[in-house]
């Protein structure tokens, strides 16, 4: 999909950045044996990046969508899609809440073997939920914004998003 509205492009960029990081963490977990996870400096660094994203980016991105965009979607008769995306936000937040302390501990090299297993499992789940969620937003939410927003509304929302 290619988007004309600033806010659609900004959200699409954030989706891609999020997937890029999650993909790198997922790949690192997939190629690192269980016994080597604890001592892997690259994995610890990625876990730190993941913690940063879980802590700041996901909440900011989701809050913006729920506050500014989903009500517009519902007003346009797509309340079902807005409710579905809101539910998925809740699920992703819940998995992120599980993963965050583990990622922090991994980054600080204080995570035990069971913790690494839990982090790996949570990361894989996070990846799958984020991929499926972003697929839906890319197909349903962002194209809809192209119709719903005029230039002024787009500019205002892009500003609100950038300063959020």
């Amino acid at each position, binding site marked *: 999909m290619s988007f004309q509205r600033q806010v659609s492009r900004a959200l699409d960029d954030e989706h891609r950045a999020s997937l890029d990081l999650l993909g790198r963490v997922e790949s690192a977990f997939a190629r690192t044996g269980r016994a080597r996870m604890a001592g892997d400096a690259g994995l610890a660094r990625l876990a730190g990046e993941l913690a940063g994203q879980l802590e700041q980016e996901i909440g900011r991105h989701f809050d913006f969508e729920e506050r500014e965009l989903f009500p517009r979607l519902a007003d346009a*008769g797509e309340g079902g899609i807005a*409710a579905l995306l809101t539910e998925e936000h809740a699920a992703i937040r819940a998995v992120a809440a599980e993963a965050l302390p583990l990622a922090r501990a991994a980054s600080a090299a204080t995570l035990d073997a069971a913790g690494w297993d839990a982090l790996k499992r949570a990361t*894989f789940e996070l990846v799958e939920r984020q991929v499926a969620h972003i697929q839906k937003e890319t197909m349903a939410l962002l194209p809809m914004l192209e119709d719903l927003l005029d230039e002024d509304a787009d500019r205002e929302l892009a500003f609100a998003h950038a300063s959020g």
Partner: protein
Amino acid sequence: MKEAAAGKSSLTPIFPAMAGSRLLRPSIPFRFFGAAVIFHVGAWIALFIGADATPRFAGGLGWPLVVLHFVTLGVLAMSAIGASLQLLPVATRRSVGSERWPAAIWWLYTPGVAMTALGMGTGAVTALAAGAVAVVAALGIYAALLARNLVGAKGMPVVVAHGWAALASLAIVLATALALAGAYAGAPTLDRATVIGLHVVFAAYGFMGMLALGLSYILVPMYALSAAPAERPAWASFALAVLALLLAGAAALDFAPVALRTAAAAAGLASVALHLHLMTTALRTGMRRHLGRSFTLVRVAWAMLVASLLLALALVFDAPVDGLATSFGVVVIGGWLLTFLLGILQRIVPFLASMHAGQVGTRGRGLPPTPSALTAARPLAIHFACHLAALALLALAVAVDSALAIRAAAALGTAGALAFGAFFAAAMRRMRRPQAPAGTAAMPGS
């Protein structure tokens, strides 16, 4: 998310009021997919029954014709209706409107297909004619819904253009279907060879083919998480495909048939080359590159699409190969369209099911299940092996004119179709029931 905390889907009270939404109730697309799963099993069983007549099948009533229509009407068109009713509104940014019409289509179409096939298999012309009327009426309603959705579509113009081409092809398919059924009922209207020529080309490459190519511009980038395919080559591919259909249609009407069919195959190959370039670019550059067995099937199907056009050329030049026409049918219907559909369906079903699943919880956390938690991997692995082996054996059986090998292929195909049915049933069951308390998220794309 109070509803989520309460472990209850907030979607539940919303769906009944979703008449204007692009998101259909799950029962709409899934009833079509479920019927397709059953007709898929039926097709392989019918092949077993009609094994003796299959290797050199050259048209006419009988079990090979049942197989052909179980697959084309029962599996391919059935799934295409379900998928397009859910996917095209997303692409066009227009809702389907009332859900009563899609439901009515299913109730008319499903028994119509069964009755048509029964008539073809047993030679009961009245059943065939009655079934054909029901099928044509149902597809006519579907065509009207599709046209209404495409009129004033706002997004994805290249997908919309494919939709219009599929719709125009469907009109030709329906007209020729009525002519063929009328001829069996003792009311011939047009030259049979002309009608069959138009019917085959516009059903396989026109209606189903253009829908498959068009919906691929939505589905492949979506699953690969890639950028949208470049528009100019997509339009060029579309124009060449339409040109190929027009040339093949003119050839069926007996205008310079060899020259026009050759040109049609060449235009088709050029169109497919551009399309596959765009699709493989999306898969190569997307953020999800490992899409598992489902996309292995899709890649096999793409290879079979190319092979079908080469076989069409061989038919045009009357290549001295026994069973060439039947081989063409196996490759274009089984190899290209059916394999493509089964690959895509195993992605769409858990994806849609996860959207509609109640928040019944994974690991007791009150979260909706992931698509992988709704995917039964083992049945899909069995289906993958059985389907590909069955198709290979079927092609071999036609080449060596062996009814025994056809039966072996049918047995393998039936096993694969049953395994696919188990996958579908598991997805439906898991969509409605609590999930197993386990770390259910597999490697995405597995």
